[in-house]
């Protein structure tokens, strides 16, 4: 297992920008993407914030350039845009004959259109337009993205709640290390839906005033949407084709908290195990980490549990950390990949993006997140955490090439 995994391209769409450049500008300008609800009619309008991508489906269809895509789900459209940007950004030629895979991740799949179908279906089982339900399953969005990019050598979809796309990057790395693929486009996509908004709302973990991760007065998360994909290539391919490298995926680990279906264990056991595995794979030690992009959802439970895990691993020497969910919202299945891209932008800019909306330190923790942007800071290795329902904990380490 000594083979290295290089990242040669990134693509992203989120509440803070429709491409890498816009996202980078928003991060540097400390501009949050949280907004009032405009995407769909809901009783929560004007009461709860969201982090919406600022494009309608019609505008995304136009960006994708195919009128026939107008029946696609929002999850597919987001993924197609970010996937295409990753490929373009890397400059890779997908027709060069090297074995290429696509691994996507999603939690809602085509639920946005299913909601419309189901309303009619419930009133009469013979009603509801079939074109609104046929794209419901998670695999559909991945096949749409694969068709759009022209990838067919290997394709699959991960769904492990909010750690989904961190896990698609892990599988991508494994495929390349094993020699099963030479290049993998890996990431995830999730659109906002009434289903997820109401689901998280019933758990009473949505902050009415927008998420304030790691703040003493935090009251929950803000749900967001988006997609991000990364082009992973083998060391050999990068050398043979003299490919420019943005970053290296040096470490990854997944562990299960095995404590509760939705809550994290008080001591963050799963988080600690996932971080330790990532260190083991990378050969790095805690003191090598320049910055932690924490999961930091803004819920009472996550931030305390994750904070304690970070204190346990890093002791008295915790590196600067922030939750960029204060910019993008919690993008669920896309979060791992979106935050991997943001981590790479931190490496590229030698900059640590702040934890927006933060004011008061948590009384249970001795650590506090980065409040104001730190520029000209050597960022060599970033630890990025993504934790999900079902105790699913994943950590990635992204490094300067």
């Amino acid at each position: 297992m000594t083979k290295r995994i290089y990242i040669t391209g990134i693509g992203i769409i989120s509440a803070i920008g429709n491409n890498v450049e816009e996202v980078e500008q928003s991060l540097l300008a400390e501009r949050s993407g949280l907004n009032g609800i405009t995407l769909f009619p809901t009783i929560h309008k004007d009461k709860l914030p969201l982090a919406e991508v600022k494009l309608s489906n019609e505008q995304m269809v136009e960006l994708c350039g195919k009128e026939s895509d107008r029946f696609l789900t929002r999850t597919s459209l987001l993924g197609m845009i970010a996937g295409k940007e990753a490929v373009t950004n890397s400059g890779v030629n997908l027709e060069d004959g090297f074995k290429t895979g696509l691994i996507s991740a999603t939690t809602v799949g085509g639920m946005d259109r299913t909601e419309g179908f189901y309303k009619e279906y419930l009133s009469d089982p013979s009603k509801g337009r079939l074109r609104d339900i046929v794209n419901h399953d998670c695999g559909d969005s991945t096949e749409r993205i694969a068709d759009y990019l022209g990838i067919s050598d290997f394709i699959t979809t991960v769904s492990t709640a909010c750690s989904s796309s961190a896990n698609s990057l892990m599988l991508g790395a494994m495929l390349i290390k094993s020699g099963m693929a030479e290049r993998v486009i890996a990431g995830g996509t999730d659109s906002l839906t009434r289903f997820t908004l109401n689901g998280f709302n019933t758990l009473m973990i949505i902050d009415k005033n927008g998420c304030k991760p790691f703040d003493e007065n935090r009251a929950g998360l803000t749900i967001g949407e988006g997609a991000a994909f990364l082009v992973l290539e083998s060391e050999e391919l990068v050398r043979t084709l003299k490919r420019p490298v943005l970053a290296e995926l040096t470490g990854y680990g997944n562990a299960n908290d095995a404590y509760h279906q939705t809550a994290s264990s008080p001591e963050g056991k799963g988080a600690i195990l996932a971080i330790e595995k990532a260190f083991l794979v990378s050969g790095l030690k805690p003191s090598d980490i320049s910055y932690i992009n924490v999961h930091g959802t803004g819920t009472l439970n996550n931030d305390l549990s994750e904070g304690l895990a970070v204190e346990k691993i890093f002791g008295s020497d915790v590196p600067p950390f922030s939750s960029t969910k204060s910019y993008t919202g919690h993008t669920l299945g896309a979060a791992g990949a979106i935050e991997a891209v943001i981590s790479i932008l931190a490496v590229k800019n030698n900059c640590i993006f702040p934890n927006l909306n933060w004011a008061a330190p948590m009384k249970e923790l001795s650590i506090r997140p980065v409040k104001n942007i730190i520029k000209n800071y050597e960022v060599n290795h970033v630890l990025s955490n993504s934790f999900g329902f079902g105790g699913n904990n994943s950590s990635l380490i992204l490094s300067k090439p």
Partner: protein
Amino acid sequence: MSNAPVYINGLGIISPQKTLEKSAFLENVTGSETNILKCREPNYKDFVSGDLVRRMSRLIKMGISASKVCLQDAECQNPDAIITGTGLGCIEDTEKFLTTMINNNEEFLTPTSFIQSTHNTVGAQIALLLKCHNYNITYVHRGFSFETALLDARLQIQESDFINVLIGGMDELTTNSFNITYRLGHWKRKPVNNLRLLEFKTKGSIAGEGAAFFLVSKDRSSKTYSAISDQLMILKPKSAHEIITKCSAMLERNNLSTNGIDLVILGLNGDFQKDKIYEEFLTVFPDSDQVYFKHLSGEYQTASAFGLWLGSVILQRQSVPEVVRLKGKFDQPIRKILLYNHYQNLNHSMILLSQVS
């Protein structure tokens, strides 16, 4: 990836047939005239405590029970990984939350069905009951869902020093999911007897469901059913030729040719159009015995897990139940089995199985 095989050292499967008990092997199979094959469910209280059972939806109970039987069968306490594959996950919970949300106009909702609708619920619940902190992943890609779980298990065993990996493929059928997929043309228009599935030359199949778990191990044990040497996943193949070419290449890298395959297990589902590709595929296996299984399992995204169970038990018992025989003499020892399945002609997959003597 190296050619080192992995071994199936334990099985647990809940299906429309009596498959959970190990005593019989597809004797007295279930016949139905409804185009729907639902699982024969055990008494779940034999597997999970009463308090927990009440809160769990059907797929969770099926998954947990099948996984328990599998781990007991393999005499494994705590696997190094739990990897599940499912097309739609706990669809009953998804429907429940969606229906309440729509009917109550987003008010008076409770979180349980939302929580359980998450696709990794079954894998997570297994981990929770075992207190298993190890690698835990769920794949959700149509007819590649279970296949990716198997592939990941093989990768982890070969690249990450894992010894025992629990994998499972599961999907449940609900009235609504049947109705909607019926409208989408997945199922036969007229009721047919499942045991005569291939006699009706019409479009559509019959609906099924199941939860099948396997302990995939690095080493053989006294329990070993079969060895898995290789697998293939082909997305939207352009022709039977492409499938045959890729299959031949896989056999070649395993030092086999088509006539080295003693038995072919096919995912024939009775849809006369979608089944054609199997017939074309079989032209290169003139001497292999042929077996099919979807008249017993029904069609669903992770039905190939039923096929893998069937192949593994055939190899271990060296006997082929009458009810799955399609064509052949069935009078030779069975050393190599090729399982070939496709889902909606989108996701084609193969698994190469060997006898462990």
